[in-house]
Structure formats: structure tokens, C-alpha cells
């Protein structure tokens, strides 16, 4: 299948990149493994595509937005100090796709839905949907004008579990904000206040990140290719055998990756024994509301939230416990 026509811009600096944004409708391009697939299916195609591959700022830092997932997966520092990030990256798509896919594109991955990620012919036969050419939702009769397409990135829950920040650069200013304040619960708008001409430069981990044990569990039919049908990242900061602090984040269960503070709050300071883990896992199962818009059924995905959560938390316990 061929790509549609568009103009590809390949700026070498952020300033050049921002200059092109004034030319009309555009999309940023990382590795293109998400965007260009949608383009091939004639989904929300824009006239200008601005590649960020040649902008050096994005390749700087441990979590530069322009680093490929393959680099992230094999980075010795990440593997030694923040293994969950390297591990989650290694579970994304396929080895070949990870050669082009970027960390930035992964965090900004478009939301996905069975009624949306389809060819133009399919969508037109179907009547299309909110997120593409029509104004109805095919998943919920009345979604309240919010799109319920699933956010399906694998790195976001892990970075949320680390309480990472993201650094954005725009034509006039740069800023940094917690990742937990970045996304919006709407599959179309997707971000709270990110402006279209802002670029993700990198993610940053908090100073205490190394004191956390973070583990990620991903639900998918096949061990490669498949987007998460559910993903749970758990993080525990151990203090002499006590779970001094706990975080739990999910992906693929909603149009936004979510941090579940209140589910873990009662167990802070506990020993995080099997019973505590089961309580959290059960609470998570009751909390998540998967939609009928991906490959696996919502009821199964919901049940699996508990298993994923239990396993992620158990994995966080020190070896041998």
C-alpha cells in the first residue's frame, strides 16, 4: 500500500522545525511507525510532515525523545538502573519496528480503536467515527463527545510509575511538567494543554528513581507485534522490608495512561504481603473499564488487570520473598 502525498520536511534544528509549522497543517514525525501506518489508511492525513530525526536536542539524555526503542532497550545504563524501561521497550512491536520507532513517538502514540485503525474503504463502508471523518462514536452510543479509543503505549505506564517528567519545547518557550499531568482522558484531544507546535524533547526521571523497584506486565496474544490489551506497571520503594511507597499505573484500559493513587494508598507502609497485593489487584480489576474496541473482549481484559497487577507487584518484591 502506498503513502498518500505530503511534503516531508527534515529540519536540522528546533528553530527550523518551528518555522515550518507556520506553513499550514502538519504532523511531527519520529520514526513514523504509528503516524505513517495511519497515513497509509488515509487517517487524518496532513499536508506537511516534519521529521524530528535530524534534530540533535532530541537525541540527548537518557530518555531523549528521538532515541529509538531499540537504543532504549539495549542502553546499558537503563538496563542496569531502570530495567523496567528497557524491558518495556523490548516488548513493543517487533525488533524491526523498534529500529525506527522513537521514545517520543511512543509517549505520543495516537489512541487506537477498532473502528478507527482501519482502511479508508472500511471506514467509509462503516460510516466512520468521531476520531476520523464522522461525528458519531461506534463504541458507545453516547460517549459525551469524548473519544474512548485506547491509549496503547507501553512506556507511559512505566514512566508514570517512576513519576517521570516530560520536557516540551515550543516556538517561544520550553517547559517541563509531570507526565501524570500530560495526558487528557479523551482519545481525540489526548493531551491536557500541549500545543500542536510543541515538541517533546525528552523525559526525565526524578532523583529518587533508582530507589524504586519497577515492574511491567503486558497482556497481548503474541509475544511480538501486538499492542498491549492491558498493561500494568507497579513501583515500590522498599524501606527495610516495608513498602514505604507504592505506585500503580495502567495502559490500554482507557484513552489515557492512568496512575491509580487511591488503590495503593492504603497499603503504603505495609509489608505488601500476598493479601495486600490481592486487595490491590482486585481493586484494580474493579476500577478499569475497558471498551469493546480492541482484539480481546472487555471482560477478559478486565479480569486480566488483576492478574497483571498481582504479577507486577509480586515481581517488585525482593527476590526470595
Amino acid at each position, binding site marked *: *500500500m*502506498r503513502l*498518500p*502525498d505530503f511534503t516531508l520536511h527534515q529540519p536540522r534544528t528546533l528553530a527550523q522545525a518551528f518555522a515550518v509549522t507556520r506553513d499550514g497543517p502538519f504532523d511531527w514525525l519520529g520514526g513514523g511507525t504509528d503516524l505513517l501506518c495511519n497515513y497509509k489508511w*488515509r487517517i487524518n492525513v496532513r499536508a506537511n510532515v516534519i521529521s524530528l530525526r535530524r534534530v540533535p536536542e532530541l537525541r540527548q539524555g537518557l530518555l531523549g525523545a528521538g532515541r529509538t526503542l531499540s537504543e532504549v532497550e539495549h542502553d546499558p545504563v537503563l538496563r542496569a538502573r531502570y530495567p523496567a524501561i528497557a524491558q518495556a521497550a523490548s516488548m513493543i512491536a*517487533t525488533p524491526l519496528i523498534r529500529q525506527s520507532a522513537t521514545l517520543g513517538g511512543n509517549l505520543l502514540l495516537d489512541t487506537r480503536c*477498532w473502528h478507527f485503525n482501519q*482502511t*479508508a*474503504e*472500511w471506514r*467509509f*463502508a*462503516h460510516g466512520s467515527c468521531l476520531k476520523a471523518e464522522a461525528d458519531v462514536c461506534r463504541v458507545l452510543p453516547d460517549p459525551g463527545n469524548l473519544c474512548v479509543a485506547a491509549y496503547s503505549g507501553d512506556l507511559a505506564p512505566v514512566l508514570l510509575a517512576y513519576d517521570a517528567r516530560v520536557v516540551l519545547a515550543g516556538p517561544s518557550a520550553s517547559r517541563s511538567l509531570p507526565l501524570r499531568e500530560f495526558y487528557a482522558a479523551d482519545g481525540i484531544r489526548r493531551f491536557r494543554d500541549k500545543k500542536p507546535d510543541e515538541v517533546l524533547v525528552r523525559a526525565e526521571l526524578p532523583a529518587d528513581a533508582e530507589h524504586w523497584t519497577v515492574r511491567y506486565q503486558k*497482556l497481548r*496474544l*503474541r*509475544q*511480538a*507485534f*501486538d*499492542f498491549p490489551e492491558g498493561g500494568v506497571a507497579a513501583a515500590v520503594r522498599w524501606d527495610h522490608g516495608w513498602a514505604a511507597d507504592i505506585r500503580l499505573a495502567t495502559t490500554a484500559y482507557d484513552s489515557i495512561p492512568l496512575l491509580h493513587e487511591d488503590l495503593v494508598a492504603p497499603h503504603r507502609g505495609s509489608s505488601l504481603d500476598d493479601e495486600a497485593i490481592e486487595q490491590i489487584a482486585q481493586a484494580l480489576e474493579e476500577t478499569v473499564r475497558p471498551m469493546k474496541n480492541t*482484539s*480481546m*473482549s472487555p471482560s*477478559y481484559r478486565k*479480569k*486480566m488487570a488483576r*492478574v497483571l497487577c498481582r504479577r507486577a507487584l509480586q515481581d517488585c518484591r525482593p527476590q526470595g520473598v
Partner: protein
Amino acid sequence: MRDGSASPDPVRMSQELTPDTTIGQRLPLVDSWEKVSGRGVYIEDMRFPNMLHARMVRASVAHGLVRRVDLGTARRVPGFVAALVPGERGTDIHFGVLPISEDETALSAPRVLYQGDIVAAVACEDELAARDAALAVRVEYEERAPVLRPKDALQETSDPLHARSVGGTNIHKTVDQAFGDVERAFAEAHAQAGGEFRFHGVNHAFTEPIGCIAVPEPDGRMTLYSATQVPHYVHLALAKVLEMPLHRIRVVKPLVGGGFGGKSDPFPHEMVAALLARKTGRPVKVIFDREEVFLNNHGRHPTAYRLQVAADREGRLTGLDAHALIDGGAWASFGVVTTYYNGVLSQGPYRLPAFRYGGRRVYTNKPPSGAMRGHGAVNARFALETSLDELAEQLGTDPFDLRAQNALPPNTVTLNHLRITSNGFLECLERVRSASEWDRKFRRLPYGRGIGLGCGFYISGSALPIHRTRTPQSTVHVKIDVDGGVTIHSMAADIGQGSDTMLAQCVAEAIGVRMLRCRVLAKDTDTAPLDLGSYSSRVTFMAGNAALRAGEVIRRKLTHACARLTGRRAEDFVPGGDETYVHRDEPSIRVRYDDALAEALADNGALIAKGVYRAPKLGGGHKGSGAGLSPTYSYQAFVAELEVDAETGFVKVEKVWAAHDVGKALNVTAVEGQIEGSIHMGLGQALSEEMRYGGGQLLNGSLLDYKIPTPLEMPEVEVHIVESNDPEGPLGAKECGEGALAPILPAVANAIYDAVGVRLREVPMTPERVLAALEDRSRRERRAGVAAGKSA
């Protein structure tokens, strides 16, 4: 000297292979170098001057009448050249792979039968323009209620989808067969097992998307280059649709990137390309994208299967009762054969004194089903082999023992008159039983880990040709000229399975020269003699025999030359290694191939020879007795060992031991490749692949959403090649490319039962279904208050 074509007896040389033989060795396929180096030419690589690109306009409704096709803005798309719309000449001429059920037309009008059916087509200067123009075509439909569920298709209707369905319903084909006293078998049964099974549709998902190029030649002929398994049937269909004599049409098959039955029908897009080429006078290319491949489908039929099998106190099988409701989708395709195969191929590898089968294939408003690797046998085999597992448990026998006890002997005839000759089934059973350490593991592994057995039986070439002609099913020509190279012409379609390599091996063996001398030209109907194509696992058996016979004729010409050069008798010269012929009693008398050839060419010119194969007359006289007849059959026994995650329902198949009676492995690497590939494909259907629909709309027509197992899902496979040396097979060989698929599905299901104690009867056995079965079992156990069988 005898002409090869007159030779009634099969050529069999397995005991006396030539000194330089390649038979039974490991060889790379002859086309692997061009493929791995990227130089191989597929349809997508081919370009012709002035070539147009066509794109199909596909129905957006599952069922309806086309009221109007409005090209509208399509004409204004830059690069638009022509369109083909309903009503144009040739677009409504019926064709189809089986002459008894030709129900397809180039364009589906006035009635569209599934969402994706081809209504019109556009031809433009480039692919992008064609896509834009096709999207711009507006079609108005008068929508009709679609028939989506097979059971609805059984009902009488005032508006059947096809004119020629059974008795005012949407039933396409009915088969009812009974042999022996089935009622009594069940009335007197000591034990019986079975149930209702459900199989979702699967697609071949070959790598190379479907495509073709129609080229109108200056002399008024039409050439079609097409990625097809059946150049001959495409040839026939084109002649019909173009209303041209066969000799004015040429079909060329370039490299084909996989077929698995999905390229074994003449297709509407091939007719569309030819009609557009005729209309524009320019070459027209069609390349499907992946979604179109899924919509074109012709994959394995979704099927509801009901089966009961009975046994007496001694564990002898006494009866089999099977019923299939088969979802054919929009067209007939190979469906008549499918309907028979779902029953008749269950008559082996076990001896059955009573057998009843009822099959209904129905039309529905979904993408057409057709032939797919293991055609007609896979779903039925699952039902039978899992029921046998259950039966063994009831009888308190080991599943291996039950099967061995009931194995068909060699050289016998089944109830439905299938002639059984070579049969390595017992050896297959023995080999995997010991290799897998079955006796140590079966019912003894910890909860969550299991081992299971599945067996199989498959035709090695359909004995009855589709068209009732007296033409041989395979003909092979061999030519040798002054360069000494051996040119092999055949229309056997190499689709990646390695038939070109097989032809080269057979001819080289028969002549007694190195395979490197051979070049196979198996692609062009203008030059190659007739072969029916690559389906029904027929090519090695039929074209292989024809190739051997052609090679034999050449060798006799060469040994006669030896005789002239040495003054000895021609019959005494045999291949002596290093491309020489040696006198069998006086080994010092040797003639080099080059010298023999020079002598043979003198005054004569190029050596040419022909070999043919025609299946012997087989079968009984009952209705439908032709179905399932084959000159021989292959046998399989597979064991799978796996792990079930009882919390998630995930199944991880860890190892498969696969024994297959291939008659004789001509090329060990190719045989192993076929078996491993079949297992990969079968595991897809077993665990994850499924065409899913929302109403009549296919939901997962992409390789992301249609879940083919990746290498990470692939278990280690240990292939056990069993050689029963078939008396009629070429050098003893028989099929190995299709029969190897079916056994893996029941092997997995039976292993799941061994692991966690639940029987799955819906395929694919996805994690969700496995988990649902486990939950169901716990609910039942809780209700019964007892823990039956194996539990955690």
C-alpha cells in the same frame, strides 16, 4: 524404444538410486538463491511500458442490488484512464474453478454478495491515482438483509443468494453418505464420545499479496501474468470470460510468494485486469493490499461440526457419525469438494465398519471460503481426534494403543472404497511415542503441563480431475541440445513449496546427471505442457512421476548411444556416477555423458522426451465416490507438549514431535520445511487466527489484527520422517505439504486436556476460551461439590 507416455507402470527406482543421487539428501531449493538475494521476480516487481494500475471498487454493503455506479469525480482524478462497470461485455460471464459450480463473474452485479465484493474497477496511470479514483466512485445500493449465520442459510427463502442453490434455500451443496449399520453401532456401543465443535474461518495469510498483470499483445492475443497456483484453470476461465479460444491466451506464472490454496481459483480481479486491458489496449496491473487479500479470502470454511464415535468393549471402533454445517460465504469455489472432504477424509487412518456423514455447505454474505492447506480435513480431523482422546479415556486405554489397535492396515480398501496401499501409520505412532517419552509423561505431568496426541490422514493428489477429460493430469517435457543442459518444461506451479526443485531432482535422477545441469521452465502455458496445478497435494506424486518418465526416455536415448559407441547392449548401461554410463557387467566400459549425448544428437538433433501421469481408475460406484480418491495417502502422528497458564488461559506449546509417512523424502530439507511450516500454520488456527466480523464487515483484515503466530510462539519441532516407499509414488514419494497441518490442532487440544482437564471444542483455542472453559469447570465443580478429574 518405448515412449514414456505409453508406460502404464509407475517408475520406481528407490532401491537403485544412481551413484550421484540427490534423492534423500538435503538440498536448497533451486530458486532459493534468487529469492534470498532479492533478485527473484514477483508480480509486484514487473513493469511493462505504458502500464496502467487498476483498483477494485468494492461493495460497502454485505448484500444488496447495485442501482447505480456513478464514476462522478473519479474521472477527474488526474491520471484516470478507464473504468469497468456492470453491464460491460464480459463482466457477467460466469466462471469458477469447478465446472459444476461456476458462479463467479468479473463484476458482482446486479447483486453484491459480501462487503468487499468487486462492483467496478478503475484503471489509472499510477497506483495512487487508482486508489483515489476508486474511492471517488459512488455506488448506490438497494440494501437487502444479509444472510450471516449458516443456520439461517438452511431456511427456505424467497430471495436466494444464488440461482442454483438447493430447494429454495441458501444451501449450496448437500452430501449424505452412509456405509454399514451406524444405528446399530451406536445402539450396541460400549463407549462413545464426541460433541459439537465450532471452527472459525481462517485465511492463508501468504506473504505475497495477490496480483496480476494483463498484457494485450500486438497480435491480439492476451497474456496474463498472475501469482497463481493454477495457471491452467485461470487459462480456462479467461478463455470463457474473454470469449477467446485458449490458444489466443497465454498465462505466465512468475515466482509466487506462497499460496496454501489461496491462489488456487481463477479470480474476478484476473478477469477484470484482462477486460480492462482489452478495453484500453494497455497492460493493466492489479496488486491487492492486505485487506483485499482477506476480503478475497477463499480460506478455510467456518464450520459447525457434530461428531460421535463409538467403540466396543475391546476398544474396536464400531461407528462414526458426523455432520458438518459449512459456511461457504459468497461463492462456490472448491466448496463441493470441501463438503465431501469433511466426511470422506475421516475414513482413515482407522478401520471403521460403519460410517455416516451429512454435510451442508451454505452461501452466506461473507467473503468466500475455499481451499486451504489440509483442505476439508482439518476441522473434521480435530473433531475426530479429540473425540478419540475422550474415547480412550472412557475405555481406560492409552490414546496410542487405541489408535494402533484400530489402524487401517496397508493394502486394503476402506468402507467408502478408498484404496489403501503403502501405510506407515504404525511406524509414525511408534516413533513419536518413544521420542516424546509419552509413557513417562501422559497423565503424569504436573497441573498446567500436558502432552497430547493427534493423528492424520491425507490424500496425495486427487485421483479424479476437476474436468472430465482424458488428458493426463501431468505432462513433463525434457529437452537436451548441444549445450548439454537439461531443460524441463512443466506447468506444475512452484508456489514456494519446491516443486521446481523436485522436478529437477527427478529428471536428473532418471537421466543420471547432476541436478545443476537441469533448468526448470515451469511458468508459461505457451511452452509448458499441461499440468493441473498446485492443489490437493498432487504435484510431487503426479508431476514427479511424469518427470521421471520423461527422464527415463532420455536416458534410454543416451544408453542406446552408449550401445552404438561400444557395441554392447543398451539395456546393460546404467548411470555410473560422475555423469558416466557404465556397463553393469564390465565396469571398465564407461561412456561419458557428453560423449553419449554427442552420439545421440548426431543426425537427430535435440533430444526431446515426454512423460505423463494419469491416476489409475479407483473407487466405488456410489454417489460422490470420486471424492477423496487418491493414488495413495499420507499418515501422521504428532505429539505436542505444552504449558497452560491457568490464570490467564495462555497456552505455550513447547515441543512438537511430528512423524509423517512421506513415502520417501526426496529432499529432506524440503520435507522438514513443509512439516514445520504446516505446524506453524496449524498452530495459528489452533490458538490465535480467526477472521472476525461485525455484522458482515470483516473486523481484522490486517496482519496486526489477524494473529499469525510469530517465531516466539513457535515451539521446537522434531520431525520424524517415516518412509513407507509407496509402490506408485515417484521413487516412493508421496505428499507432505498438507497432511502435516491437521494433526497439530487436536494434539494441542488433547494436551490442554492433559494439562488442565478441560476439553475445548471451539477453535481457535484463545486464552479467553481456555480461561472460560476453566471457569466453567470450576463453576460446575463447585455446584457438584466434588473435584472431578485433574485439578489444581
